[in-house]
């Protein structure tokens, strides 16, 4: 098949697009596909990811010997590689060893920093304080002084809470030591 744009090179990128309810197929060579650039990027997103996953399999052959099925929903890691969608929230735990290198690659990190649903058990006060300080800085920058005051009070409150908690832990340790 020959490229629809340059009509010279072999088409290796195949794209189906629905425009005004009409299906359009485009067959492009790599060069022309690249030139289409920004417009095509959204179509390539998933393909890139899947290619990335395939590569990863080659780089880390040992992953094949690890758990390959989610113990909650039963999704096979193979299916995830094919479709690019995980089965359920538990998949993250089941496939942790294989997902960690993937996340490092596509996200540059494996650890969430940021908000969490309220009422969850995480005490991450330190992270929350850091987060609030950034927001405080922004509020001051944007001259939103009411918001800044609110954030300042919240930081103070959290810092006090954290201080108390640390104090409590020290006390606890202290009493344990006395027992010994």
């Amino acid at each position, binding site marked *: 098949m020959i490229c629809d744009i340059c009509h010279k090179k072999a088409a290796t990128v195949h794209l189906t*697009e*629905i*425009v*005004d*309810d009409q299906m359009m197929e485009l067959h492009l060579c790599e060069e022309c596909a690249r030139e*289409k*650039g*920004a*417009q095509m*990027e*959204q179509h390539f*997103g998933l393909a890139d*990811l899947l290619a990335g996953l395939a590569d990863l399999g080659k780089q880390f052959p040992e992953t094949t010997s690890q758990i390959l099925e989610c113990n909650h*929903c039963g*999704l096979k890691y193979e299916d995830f590689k094919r*479709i*690019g*969608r*995980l*089965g*359920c*929230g538990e998949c*993250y*735990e089941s496939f942790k060893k294989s*997902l960690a290198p*993937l*996340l490092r690659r*596509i*996200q*540059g*990190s*494996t*650890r*969430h*920093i*940021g*908000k*969490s*649903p*309220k*009422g*969850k058990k*995480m005490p991450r006060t330190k*992270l929350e304080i*850091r*987060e609030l300080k*950034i*927001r405080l800085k*922004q509020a001051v920058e*944007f001259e939103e002084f009411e918001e800044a005051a609110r954030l300042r009070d919240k930081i103070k409150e959290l810092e006090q809470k954290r201080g108390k908690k640390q104090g409590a832990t020290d006390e606890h340790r202290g009493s344990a030591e006395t027992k010994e």
Partner: protein
Amino acid sequence: MNIEDLLKQKSEWLRGIGPDSDIVVSSRIRLARNLRGYPFTHWGGDDEKAEIIEKIVTVCEKISRLKGALFLRINEISKVDRQFLVERHLMSREFGAEPEHKMLIISSDEVMSVMVNEEDHLRIQTMKSGFDLKNAWNIIDAFDEALAKELDFAYHDEFGYLTACPTNVGTGMRASVMLHLPSLVLTKQIDKILQAIAKLSLTTRGLYGEGTEASGNFFQISNQVTLGRSESELIEHISGMIGQVIEHERNARNALLEKNEARLKDRVWRAFGILKSSRIITSSETIDLLSSVRLGCDLNILPGMNTELLNELFIITQPAHLQKLEGKKLTPEERDLKRAQIIRERLNI
């Protein structure tokens, strides 16, 4: 409220107001959330999807921000209506492509929308006119908190909010800004800028999936990474970068005015002339010409023109909007006629 009411009002993101609205069309933030204990949408059964819709709708009906909101079952609305909602950026194209067990909730001011059973159980978004990510974040953050009070989100201490695709895990947040960068395109600096953006973990896309080839002067820039950085860090990062792009576009506009004023004016007035007099016009030609006229408006080359009117033309000349305005299905040829007529009417100032 119903879909027809949307046609009568202006989309929030097209109001042409807000910071840097001469260059930034709109700012949008979306969060991906899933309910604990259910498979992700792609693998979910019909009963599970129905249950998720019921749960989320019950909660949303109680949230004050959604008072008077529009609740739409996608399989119950026509194809034209679905496309109409995509054109207004209230839902994704993929969401409309498989309409079963999908629910869309739109706040009466169109600032917020909630897609239920998209790739993730919940995709919530806020959209503001101009360069205003901070405000968009404040609105969506408060809404997310309200939802979290009633719904148990899939959350992992290490990975954060769990999403169907690992490209969204962590914050589940995508912040994107739509920019109009005609001068960077005209002065051929755009590729350099887009390359720099790509290096900084930001992604660029066109205006729409549809008719995108011709909308070359509109770019959506968004964060690529969702894990390992907090929401405010991500917003700060993208805002800093967008600030620089805006500055480059302003410089390019000034340079064009200084060095090529006559050519620039010629381009703007010709575009205006065609729009005011054409009898048949395609969607892509319209976007191209409106882009030039918008630049002329921003640089005060065209007296009496306003961004709001131009923004309105951008949207009402889209295929589904034209058909909704006409009240019937139109062939592409009929649309080109109708489009030219509407533009002439509106520009007859």
